[in-house]
């Protein structure tokens, strides 16, 4: 059966005329077509049937071509059926939204991390410093730099919404500095306060970007600007090399340690 998927529909119908009738029943009128020579699998994919209809169609064709044989039905890639529309971002903006997901996974770990925090323990201090390293290098140098140095530059810097975004990045940086000072002083109250404030700030900040700022920016970009943004972000990705993957593994390690697996994002 699988090999028939890669055969031309003309050949299949010639050898198994019944297949032509079955296709007709699903309003896929290949039998009388005199031009073109599509593959069976492409026809199934292109016609974008409902999953139920597709399964039924494939089962019926299989019944004709290889009766009695147990068949694996092919998973055909399809466009999403109409339904509640999820936000569609341009490819460069989508990259940023993906980065947010890793940042949100870090944020979700903060309460667990604070729960048993003991700054007298070197292991705990290292843990906080590890989280700060993630925030500074991944969330800030890698991600916020793409926003501040590239994305936001396409817009008037005096726009209120951009001023707010810049201000929130700065407030986040101040919290991180306070966390580091707290670790230095072994002051767990300060570490708790600022790490938690950072979590709250960034959670809302990311929500604003994902749901309002980015879609709005995307609507204003020309096709050409989208391409330019994509290659400029690609340039930043290249500069950071393996670091983003390293931070992904770091977060995953914390999730396994604290929660037995992923808890957000």
């Amino acid at each position, binding site marked *: 059966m699988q090999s028939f998927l890669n055969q031309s529909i003309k050949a299949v119908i010639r050898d198994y005329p019944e297949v032509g009738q079955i296709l007709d029943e699903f309003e896929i009128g290949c039998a009388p077509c005199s*031009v073109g020579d599509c593959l069976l699998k492409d026809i199934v994919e292109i016609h974008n049937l409902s999953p139920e209809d597709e399964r039924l169609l494939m089962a019926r064709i299989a019944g004709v071509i290889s009766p009695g044989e147990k068949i694996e039905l092919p998973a055909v890639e399809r466009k999403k059926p109409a339904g509640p529309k999820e936000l*569609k971002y341009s490819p460069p903006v989508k990259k940023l939204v993906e980065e947010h997901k890793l940042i949100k996974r870090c944020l979700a770990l903060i309460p667990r991390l604070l729960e048993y925090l003991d700054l007298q323990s070197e292991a705990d201090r290292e843990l906080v410093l590890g989280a700060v390293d993630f925030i500074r290098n991944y969330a800030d140098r890698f991600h916020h730099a793409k926003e501040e140095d590239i994305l936001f530059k396409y817009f008037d810097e005096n726009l209120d919404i951009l001023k707010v975004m810049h201000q929130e990045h700065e407030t986040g940086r101040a919290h991180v500095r306070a966390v580091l000072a707290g670790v230095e002083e072994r002051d767990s109250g300060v570490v708790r306060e600022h790490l938690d404030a950072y979590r709250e700030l960034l959670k809302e900040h990311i929500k604003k970007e994902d749901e309002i700022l980015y879609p709005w920016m995307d609507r204003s970009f020309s096709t050409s600007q989208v391409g330019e943004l994509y290659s400029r972000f*690609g340039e930043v990705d290249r500069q950071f090399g393996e670091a983003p993957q390293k931070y992904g593994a770091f977060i995953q390690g914390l999730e396994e340690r604290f929660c037995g697996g992923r808890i957000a994002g």
Partner: protein
Amino acid sequence: MTFQGCPGSKTFDFRGEATAEESPGEKIKSQLKQWPVQLHLVSPTAPYYQGADVLLAADCVAYALGDFHQQYLKGKAVAIACPKLDEGQEVYLEKIKAMCEEAKINTLTVLIMQVPCCMGLLKLAQEAVRQSSRKVPLKYAVVSLQGEILEEEWA
């Protein structure tokens, strides 16, 4: 009786519905900045593709879409092809790949008709970009038989 053929060659007659407003008297300028345009004829490394926003349009599109030149062709390098009738489409795949990798195109916009077989051109472009070592943002738009844009998305 329901139509039994390929939807791509089903006959429609819109004569009663033709609404075309008269153009404003002035001659409309072509936005075409290159020759050739057919995908078998073009070289993917031709200067007009270098770093360009490229439009890959199904053959029928320019006939259906009233504002093709201003709305889509303007500012872009173009290639046209028919996913249903053209031979040697593996060459198309290689050419689109070469546009991404060698001509370092900025974006690829695929314009197809709403008939199901035209989806093949988008699939071809997606496969070429997927195989390419250099990724390029890919957008598509679907044009109705009467020239409306039914859908326009980043793929």
